């Protein structure tokens, strides 16, 4: 432990500058404690009691400024003090702060101070988030509740209350929504239009909204409900309210519903309401029962991409059959591409390894693979018999969701921090039985700001390994995002293509290419 201090005489710094200087100092690595205070006799007494009153500081006057730091490293201490002085100097020239920048300390405070507040985004710890959400609702605010670990009882209470008050209660565990064009939490910059979405799935919402935007359609509103909404106990409360809201919304002409299969009772409720609504409703309930939807007059789609394309066709007044033709053409193209790829793959390579950051995208991929070939192993398998024994080690055909709890304890989500997946990619590449690596890449607000910078080195290393071992292995990736996202989808795709990554235009397409490759290999 090292202690050093300086006296600054003859200058005055306003209180906010002093506070910010203290804060900045404390945030420096190695600084155990820092105090930037006036050298009054009394403050010196406190320093003494804290064993921080160095002899050279004793002569300080009331009007002098003291800067004292305690660090764990002798080398840096002088640098740190210099930094403090620099900060103080800079404050003299800094741009004026907006005196009206107001930070309330509570929801009640905010509501009183800011006229017209209408939406609260809550992402505090689950333990407290439920109560904060209720406070927001009670104050008449619509709520986006990003936090998870909120007890299910609380979720039900919140949603019932919100329904009564006709408020949005998006979440808990709702990662994405687009309301009035505003990207909430993880969301993409998409075109505005007349297609509304209700989603009990974050990345599902993202994939659908991005494809819609790319195909020339636009989003009116995208309401998230959190993953548990369509389970039996929550009963689809927000899902239904969301559908009703879009039904009434003037701007919305087409509605898209995105979710994993709802509980059958919830599905019934959804079907009932679909029947009552005149607007066209496209559904993608991954792996769910499409009969009930069809019978209710809805339009069930088989993939997220398909749902998006159908919605855009309807929105543009095109014939759905036309686009079905396009889909068929795409499938043909994918088949051909698969054949080309297989030619380069060595004998003995036969497995797929899918490494996902988006849960819904992982599920969609598993479903498509199952349809084409067989069940796959996973940490979140759609077939419970195919649960991986050790989630850290792939087994045969494996498609995993790295966003699940077992991978994210004490660690950022894979949409932000690529390190875990990068590591896994290299492990899979080294496995001589692997034929395909399948990835998702989700862009947008909240996601990693420089995905290309983080992925590129890994892809290059992968190629080096493969070269050395004289193997070829297609790395297939779909990018969920738009060109207007901060990362810029076009730019990212270009960069990845340059290093040999096969970019497909949707998760479904990427999954189909992968399964096609594996199928052909299997048949040979």
């Amino acid at each position: 432990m090292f202690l050093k201090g300086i006296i600054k005489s003859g200058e005055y710094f306003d209180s906010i500058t002093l506070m910010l200087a203290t804060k900045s100092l404390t945030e420096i690595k190695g600084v155990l404690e820092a105090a930037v205070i006036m050298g009054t006799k009394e403050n010196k007494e406190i320093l003494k009691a804290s064993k921080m009153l160095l002899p050279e500081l004793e002569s300080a006057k009331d009007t002098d400024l003291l800067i004292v730091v305690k660090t764990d490293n002798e080398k840096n201490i002088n640098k740190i003090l210099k930094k403090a002085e620099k900060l103080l100097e800079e404050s003299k020239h800094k741009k004026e702060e907006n005196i009206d920048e107001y930070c309330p300390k509570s929801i009640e405070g905010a509501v009183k101070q800011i006229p017209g507040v209408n939406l609260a985004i809550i992402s505090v710890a689950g333990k407290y988030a439920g109560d904060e959400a209720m406070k927001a609702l009670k104050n008449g605010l619509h709520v986006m509740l990003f936090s998870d670990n909120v007890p299910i009882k609380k979720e039900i209470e919140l949603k019932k209350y919100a329904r009564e008050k006709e408020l949005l209660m998006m979440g808990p565990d709702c990662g994405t929504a687009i309301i009035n064009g505003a990207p909430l939490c993880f969301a993409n910059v998409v075109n505005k239009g007349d297609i509304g979405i209700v989603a009990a799935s974050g990345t599902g919402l993202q994939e659908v909204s991005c494809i819609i935007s790319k195909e020339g359609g636009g989003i009116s509103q995208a309401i998230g409900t959190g993953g548990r909404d369509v389970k039996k106990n929550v009963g689809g409360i927000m899902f239904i309210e969301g559908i009703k809201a879009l039904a009434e919304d003037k701007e919305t002409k087409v509605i898209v519903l995105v979710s994993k299969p709802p509980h059958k009772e919830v599905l019934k409720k959804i079907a009932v309401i679909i029947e009552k609504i005149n607007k066209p409703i496209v559904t993608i309930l991954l792996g769910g029962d499409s009969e009930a939807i069809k019978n209710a007059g809805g339009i069930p789609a088989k993939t997220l991409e398909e749902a998006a394309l159908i919605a855009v066709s309807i929105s543009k007044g095109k014939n759905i059959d036309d686009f079905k033709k396009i889909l068929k053409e795409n499938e043909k193209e994918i088949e051909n591409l698969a054949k080309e790829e297989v030619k380069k793959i060595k004998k003995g390579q036969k497995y797929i390894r899918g490494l996902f950051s988006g849960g819904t995208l992982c599920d969609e991929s598993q479903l498509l693979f199952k349809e084409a070939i067989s069940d796959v192993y996973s940490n979140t398998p759609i077939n419970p018999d195919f649960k991986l024994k050790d989630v850290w080690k792939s087994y045969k055909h494996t498609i995993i969701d790295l966003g699940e709890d077992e991978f994210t304890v004490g660690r950022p989500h894979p949409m932000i921090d690529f390190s875990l997946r990068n590591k896994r990619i290299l492990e899979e590449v080294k496995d001589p039985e692997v034929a395909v690596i399948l990835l998702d890449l989700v862009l947008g607000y909240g996601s990693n700001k420089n995905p290309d910078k983080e992925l590129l080195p890994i892809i290059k290393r992968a190629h080096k390994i493969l070269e050395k071992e004289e193997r070829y292995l297609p790395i297939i990736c779909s990018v969920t995002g738009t060109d207007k996202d901060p990362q810029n989808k076009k730019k990212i795709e270009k960069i990845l293509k340059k290093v040999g990554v096969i970019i497909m235009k949707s998760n479904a397409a990427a999954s189909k290419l992968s399964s096609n490759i594996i199928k052909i290999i299997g048949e040979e």
Partner: protein
Amino acid sequence: MAIKDLFEKELKIINIGLFSFKESLEEANFKVFQVNWEPPAGGDEEVLDALKKLLNS
């Protein structure tokens, strides 16, 4: 204000929790007020629970 009314109004958002959500919206040109929320009692580590999903520093 019912949901359909919200759709017709200008959003005025308060953000309670992770600061990056406020920044993103401001980048997209929406006005957001940060609430300097602190847990009613109890440990700092618990506040960081949300960062299990999202952490950036």
